[in-house]
């Protein structure tokens, strides 16, 4: 697949009162997104995902570097870049007192559609997001999931080549979440390149062709799911439900051969272990010796969370 987007030494330096902090290392973020793929940017809240999307969509001016999208530079030809992208922000960026149809018409006009093309495309999008029956109701009267669907629909009005979705499943019910994930897959099957940011690793795992893990404004790992998992080797995550474990016990657990690290979070001890099932009996023996009550045990095969834990020393949702 050909490269569709190239981030070249992209960096944003914030000054007081918003900063000081930077998104991107000193040398800037370098990244390529291929045409027709779903690329996920996975990272905790505040990692810099939205800043990168904002720079890519022309909302923020990069302090350094550039984004070339579909052959156009965002710093030099921003309007040409914007013609090729649809942006679905994290917030419900809709006018609540307008209907879905009115919102779609408004943004369609701003994307350059007029007359019959506009009304025809509005109907198509309403059909796609399955809201034709409620098209003339005010957005304020919709459920959270319906609003999210309109939020996506607005970004599709001009048939963009690439769609940016910034945490589109935050604070919605499981059914609506499922609907959105299926929509993203369907759009991708139609040939649309997708940049998807999330802090839910399951979503990144399910959707992505490739994943970039971002933390503190830097992309710390990049590749397919398999490639990333391989970076943590054969390590499993053993979760021991153990209220208030003494530090000495945690230290002993960490000292078990083939256990790379032991750490505690809210009533839980997590062990990063090579071949976790083999190490489990020894871990339970140490806990029993300490006279502690073990409430539960869970072993996770290598996944993105383990990758993140391995790379940063903390869980993705911490």
């Amino acid at each position, binding site marked *: 697949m050909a490269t569709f987007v190239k981030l070249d030494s992209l960096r944003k330096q914030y000054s007081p009162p918003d900063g000081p902090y930077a998104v991107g290392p000193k040398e800037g973020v370098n990244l390529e997104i291929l045409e027709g793929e779903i690329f996920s940017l996975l990272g905790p809240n505040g990692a810099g995902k939205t800043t990168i999307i904002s720079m890519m969509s022309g909302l923020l001016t990069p302090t350094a570097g550039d984004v070339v999208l579909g052959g156009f530079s965002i710093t030099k030809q921003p309007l040409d870049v*914007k013609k090729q992208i649809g942006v679905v922000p994290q917030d419900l*960026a809709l006018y609540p*007192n*307008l209907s879905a149809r009115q919102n779609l018409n*408004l943004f369609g*006009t*701003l994307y350059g559609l007029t007359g019959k093309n506009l009304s025809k495309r509005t109907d198509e999008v309403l059909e796609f997001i399955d809201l034709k029956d409620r098209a003339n109701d005010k957005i304020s009267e919709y459920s959270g999931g319906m609003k999210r669907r309109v939020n996506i629909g607005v970004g599709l009005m001009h048939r963009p080549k690439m769609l940016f979705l910034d945490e589109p499943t935050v604070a919605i019910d499981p059914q609506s979440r499922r609907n959105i994930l299926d929509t993203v897959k369907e759009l991708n099957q139609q040939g649309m390149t997708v940049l998807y940011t999330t802090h839910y690793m399951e979503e990144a795992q399910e959707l992505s062709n490739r994943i970039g893990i971002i933390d503190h404004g830097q992309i710390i790992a990049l590749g397919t799911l398999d490639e990333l998992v391989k970076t943590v080797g054969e390590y499993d995550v053993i979760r021991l439900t153990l209220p208030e474990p003494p530090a000495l016990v945690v230290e002993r657990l960490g000292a078990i051969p083939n256990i790379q690290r032991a750490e505690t979070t809210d009533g839980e001890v997590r062990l990063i272990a090579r071949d976790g099932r083999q190490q489990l009996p020894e871990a339970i023996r140490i806990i029993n010796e300490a006279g502690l009550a073990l409430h539960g045990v869970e072993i996770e095969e290598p996944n993105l969370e383990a990758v993140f834990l391995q790379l940063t020393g903390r869980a993705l949702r911490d």
Partner: protein
Amino acid sequence: MLWRKIQAVAWADIYQAFTDRSALLFNFASPLAISMIIGAAFGGGSNDVDVEAAKVGVLNLDAGSAEVEQAFGDIYTRVLVEAPPEELIDFIEGKAITDEKKARQQVEDGDLDVLLVIPEDFTAKVIEPGKGGTLQVYYNPGAGIPGDVARSIIDGMTTQINNQNIALHVGIPYASEQAARNNQAIDAAVAYVQQASQQLREKEAITLNRVGVEGDVQEFNSLQYFGPGMAILFMTYALSNGAVSILVDQRNWTMQRIWTTPSPRTVYLGGKMVGVYATGLFQMIVLMLAMIFAANVVFGSGVAVWGTDVIGIVLVLVSVVAAGAGFALVIASFAKNPDQGGSISTLVLTVSGLLGGAFLPVDDVPILGQLSKLTLNRWGLDGFTTLSFDGGTVVDILPNVAVLLGMAVVFFTMAVFQFGRRFRS
């Protein structure tokens, strides 16, 4: 295409403004109700409204007479021009006239409310029994209260001089002569004086010949003051809602989303400005029509709430809305968030309304009268009242229009600069 996009952004604002029921109630029903209540409370001809000094021109050609020490024409000149009594100072602004033709044109143009022409043989004819002098009083029927005041003063003076003339010609000489002869004749003298006075009253020495120059007689109604005052005040409130919606858009990310479309950023701000302006203009037009209708229902026909000079009304309307839109945008541009924008706007616009005379005239209140000139409310209100109960024309409101448009230019420039600064990425 750009204009189409600007229209789309503006339309979204206008549509939302006029489909919000609570906003409609506040923006339309409130000013209408308040104006009608105040108008009904004061009724027509309220004295609570400030009355401007009457501009009176006096052309004194009176040559006097050897029989009297002072020409009667000089009395008019002294009272109306040279040394008005203290109680008249606030009501009269007199000036001596030398060119009658030019002065009559000034009356026609509204630069003079009343012109008094005293002929050369005035005193001579007044003191000659049976003849009587005639004063020409030119007035503009559209001059409203100031013109009425000036004519009343001239009427009063004329009555006094007529009475003095009776005493001069009949009472004092005859009574003195009879009293010198014998006391018994006094009763007969008094009877004679009464009879002669009655005859002289029937043919007064001075006749006022009133000449209306042009225009229709205008009835003053309190609604002519409070109607525009309330309409402008509530128009600025509605405009502030539109301006603060920029901050709401920023919070809700609709503004940023618009910026991700292939449209220059000016499209958004331009659309917002057009939307704010159109909202204010539409609200004012609806209120103006509603007040005309309501005034005729409540007070009967003939109350020209906004005056009759359509071009003048349109000029004041478009300029006061422009100034209001600019002012609302400036306030919003400095607010940190929509809540702060709403609170500050309400406070500033209410104070501006108070200072500008929306609730009570403040022209003659020390300091406030001067401060009011800093408000768009004052200039807009003054423009509308000049057209209504002052019976002014386009020429009379040009200074108001110029000041309001000047304010609009300054405010819009400030708002564009400040929004540009805060949205710089």
